[in-house]
């Protein structure tokens, strides 16, 4: 029995705690002992819930300790902790009695030295590069002469002054300054917001949208410039639809925004130089162009008029053009009458030559020759006709000899014999068929006789008829007016009287029959 519950052992006097009591005692010891510690370690898993607090693990190769950064502290941090970052966290250790846990409440956390910071930047850079944000193809062309330049920088200080001075020297423009903090925790969100804000403006609106952005900051320590290494700034710059020049720090400083901007200027002054051309140079160029334009046209006109003069000089005088033809006309006119006369003479000679040979005897000669030809041919007409007729008659006779009735009559005789033969066979076949049918018919009739009722009658049976119907029962017999009995050798009438047929239904009359 004594094993079942705690039985104070005599002499044992250590105190007895409740769980809460011991938990509170541990909390007091730990918080007293570790009220302010600095821990160096690598950031493990980080979670940032909506509440704004940051929960993370700090670890080294063997141990891990949970940490929490309360919302108020988290907002002030210069560097947000990222997984894998080597950090030094400052804070106090506290316990969490409800779960038997302890953790560090972090008051400040920062990268453990420059190396850790740069390592983190490299990692970030590699990630953005992998996304293609540094792709040269993404870079937009700067406008040659922007109308409005948006400058994201501190409104006071040397940077904006440098930019405005240089713009004034080159080409005074409209400038919109979006004031931002250029260092500290507010820097990155404000710069990102300014870039997005300029992009959100509408061209020609109440706040006119710039067509070029300059994001600028003077030189400083790497910590001072750190805001421009933040991812939100780099992403805002990459998303900007307005071409963007970055000019952060001195020439040797390169921040993340420089990789995504459309142009990286080494200094704010250089940014202004890239932003606008030199007005005076342009004015002189325009003047020059005007002069060239005038000279070119004048030259063109001079050359044309010179050419015109040259060509005009080469043109012959109109009179000289006509001289030759006029002379030819004169010569030809002189020759024309003589030529006409000669032509008529030649034709007249030809006519008289032909007319001379045309005489009546010529016609007679021709007629006589034709007449002789007719006389020679005429006697040959009759013999030729009779010879032709004779030839055709001979041909006709030759054919008519071959035309005879003998073959036809021979054929006719043969066919008549065939017909007589067939007629005879038809008659024979017919009478044979009739005999056969007659024999069969007699056989069938005999069969009919044996099967019919007459044969039965011969065996002594009789059929009763009444009023021409066969009577098969007594009722029908009583109704009938006349009864006949048929035997094999004929019918026997039972007292039939033709006069009584008029009243066949009278019983006394019927009764008298018996």
């Amino acid at each position, binding site marked *: 029995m004594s094993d079942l519950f705690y039985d104070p052992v005599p002499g044992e006097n250590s105190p007895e705690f409740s769980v809460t009591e011991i938990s509170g005692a541990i909390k007091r010891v730990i918080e007293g002992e570790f009220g302010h510690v600095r821990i160096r370690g690598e950031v493990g898993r980080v979670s940032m819930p909506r509440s704004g607090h940051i929960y993370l693990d700090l670890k080294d190769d063997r141990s891990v300790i949970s940490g929490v950064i309360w919302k108020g502290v988290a907002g002030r941090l210069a560097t947000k902790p990222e997984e894998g970052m080597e950090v030094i966290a400052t804070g106090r250790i506290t316990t969490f009695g409800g779960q038997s846990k302890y953790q560090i409440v972090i008051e400040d956390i920062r990268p453990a030295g420059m190396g850790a910071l740069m390592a983190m930047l490299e990692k970030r850079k590699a990630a953005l590069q992998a996304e293609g944000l540094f792709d040269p193809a993404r870079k937009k062309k700067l*406008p*040659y*002469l922007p109308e409005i330049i948006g400058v994201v920088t501190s*409104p006071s200080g040397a940077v*904006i*002054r440098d930019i*405005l001075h240089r*713009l*004034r020297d080159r*080409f*005074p*423009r*409209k*400038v*919109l*300054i*979006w*004031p931002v903090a250029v260092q500290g925790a507010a820097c990155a969100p*404000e710069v990102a*917001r300014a870039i997005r*804000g300029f992009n959100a403006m509408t061209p020609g609106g*109440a*706040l006119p949208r710039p067509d070029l952005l300059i994001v600028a900051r003077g030189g400083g320590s790497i910590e001072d410039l750190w805001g421009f290494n933040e991812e939100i700034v780099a992403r805002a710059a990459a998303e900007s639809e307005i071409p963007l020049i970055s000019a952060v720090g001195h020439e040797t400083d390169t921040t993340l925004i420089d990789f995504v901007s459309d142009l990286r200027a080494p200094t704010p002054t250089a940014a202004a130089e890239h932003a606008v051309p030199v*007005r005076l140079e*342009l*004015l002189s*160029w*325009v003047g020059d*162009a*005007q002069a*060239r*334009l005038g*000279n*070119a*046209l004048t*030259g*063109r*006109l001079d*050359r*044309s008029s010179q050419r015109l003069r040259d060509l005009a000089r080469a043109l012959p005088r109109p009179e000289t053009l006509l001289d030759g033809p006029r002379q030819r006309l004169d010569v030809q006119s002189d020759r024309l009458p003589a030529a006409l006369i000669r032509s008529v003479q030649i034709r007249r000679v030809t006519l008289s030559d032909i007319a001379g040979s045309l005489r009546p005897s010529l016609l007679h000669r021709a007629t006589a020759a034709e007449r002789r030809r007719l006389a020679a041919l005429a006697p040959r007409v009759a013999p030729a006709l009779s010879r032709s007729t004779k030839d055709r008659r001979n041909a006709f006779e030759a054919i008519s000899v071959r035309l005879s009735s003998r073959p036809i009559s021979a054929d006719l005789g043969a066919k008549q014999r065939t017909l007589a033969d067939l007629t005879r066979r038809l008659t024979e076949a017919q009478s044979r068929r009739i005999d056969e049918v007659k024999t069969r018919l007699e056989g069938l009739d005999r069969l009919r006789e044996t099967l019919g009722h007459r044969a039965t009658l011969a065996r002594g049976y009789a059929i009763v008829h009444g009023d021409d119907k066969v009577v098969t029962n007594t009722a029908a017999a009583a109704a009938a007016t006349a009864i006949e009995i048929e035997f094999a050798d004929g019918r026997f009438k039972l007292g039939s009287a033709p006069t009584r047929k008029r009243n066949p239904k009278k019983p006394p009359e019927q009764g008298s029959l018996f």
Partner: protein
Amino acid sequence: MSETAVDEMSFEQAMAELEQVVGKLERGDVALEDSIKLYERGAALKKRCEAKLKEAEEKVAAITLNTDGEPTGTTPVEGL
């Protein structure tokens, strides 16, 4: 020749076309009639360039932000 209205051109566009026009005219390989048209176009382009260069007014303003960081308007900036 492009048909863009000269009055709507940016300085850069006008300058580029002016350069082209001058070059064409200087080579002298255009018909006389066309060269006069080119000259007129060139003169208009030059006028546009000059007008754009005359708009060289400096006006600096800073954006005013409300407590949420949203822009509310501008305030002139002097003396920088």
